[in-house]
């Protein structure tokens, strides 16, 4: 079996398992404990913020090109979204600004 195929199969299996585990544990037919339902309700907002930090984790405060593009573009996304509340505009605008800043700095 080619090495890449081994890698793909292992990755597919593990990725699917991590996604399926909650359903295996609390899946169909069994009653979901109240605490799990509570977590399912309050986790998404927390996870979203963590994902934002995760995406920006490579920001370095040492040099301006290390943190300026990510920071300015993020501020732009938030401002655009507060102003127009149009997801496509906020995402598109922020991304373009980020690319521009990467190119300039």
């Amino acid at each position, binding site marked *: 079996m080619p*090495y*890449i*195929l*081994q*890698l*793909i*199969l*292992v*990755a*597919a299996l*593990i*990725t*699917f398992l*991590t*996604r*399926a*585990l*909650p*359903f295996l544990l609390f*899946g169909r037919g069994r009653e*979901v404990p109240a*605490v*799990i*339902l*509570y*977590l*399912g*309700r*309050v*986790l*998404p*907002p*927390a*996870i*979203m*913020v*963590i*994902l*934002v*930090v*995760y*995406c920006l*984790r490579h920001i370095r405060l040492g040099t301006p090109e290390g943190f300026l593009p990510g920071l300015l*573009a*993020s501020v732009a*996304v*938030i401002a655009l*979204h*507060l102003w127009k509340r149009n*997801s*496509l505009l*906020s*995402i*598109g605008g*922020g*991304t373009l600004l*980020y*690319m521009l800043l*990467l*190119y300039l700095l």
Partner: protein
Amino acid sequence: MKGNVAIDRVDFGFFPHLNLLETDVAVDDIKMEVLRLAVFEEQSAVYEIYLDFTCRQAGETDSPVDEIHLDGFAVRGDFDVEAGEDRTIRGLSLHAFPKILEKTIGILAGFLPAEVKAFLFLLHPESFVKGKEEVVLLAVFKTVVICATRANVDGNVDAGKNQLTHKSSPFGTQALFSYSIEFRQKMKRGCTGGQALCYAERRKGEEILSTLRAAFQKSLPILAGYLFMGFAFGVLVRQAGYSWLWALLSALLVYAGSGQFLLAAFLFDPQALPLFALTTFLVNSRHLFYGLSFLTVFRGKGLRRLYSIFSLTDETYSVLCGLLRETPACQPMMLQIALLHHLYWILGCCLGAIFASAIPLKLEGVDFSMTALFLVIVVEQWKSAGSLRDRLPALLGGMSALLTLLLLGPEHFILPALCLALLALLAFRRFLEEEAS
């Protein structure tokens, strides 16, 4: 050409318990008509089945009708109807299917979708004795149209619907059933099963299209990011010396952004499968938390549920979370969004691997669209939360992330951050639950 055809007896072949209710059929040029057949009576409920059929004329408009199509079943015979003439057809026969079918149907039936089962029920009802109500709903099968509803349709719709609700999927038989009942009520039963079904089909089509349109709009923010990230992965696969088909395969089977980049990195390190497995698990461990929000939402049929779980990437998770707040449990749209996202990803991976060297385009930074997407979702949640209490989960998440990032560094913080957030949320449970009630 007009005329009346009376049918005095129908030999129903495989459907011995069918009997004819309406015997007079007006023949009016080439026109679709409906034959109403009662199926069975059971516990005061009469089920009805409608068969559409078409009268065909051989040639010119004034030539006699020489063929009646009970759609799939062509019934040829002694019933030329001249203009203005009334005629009785004797011995209409529905023996059109070979016996071998009868045997296989019973075996296969268990695995089939409801629409197909309903069709097969017509062929071989005995196989379905147990699941009568499940299959005798309503079905569209290209040629045969069955419209089975409770006889007391107008008075008893809700009873009929309730029985169906838990057995049918939103876009399956049930939608057609309720639409056709809607139509029949509107027409005060003065319509044929075929008309009702045309209406139901159209409504269902509109519904699917409008959902798909909405799903496409919701999936748009992901389009650029997935195409770009997939593209980058495809380039890596080619650089490691593999063909684009491998990129396609991993996009199809693995479907994880960071997971696949890890895979590409390990392509250059051929002796490290166990290490790869462990790292993949750690990188993807954040997915362990995603399912918790969809435990009660993903409950379609087997394959759909499996796919919904399989396709729960960071981005799909975020988009679906947004959907969860707007319209609870709109599963068909969720599935369509997941499929569209997967499609973008597959497209990106393949394009990247195919045009690895051909495109000198510099797209550095397009991947920021993912960050922007998560930011937009955070802003949305922040704005829709009314009080500080509502915003507490996001605050706790942010604090856990920053704390662990500072302590552990950018490469190993995500799983601890998630665990810390989980613990913090558990610690504040009483406080947050109060707010909910």
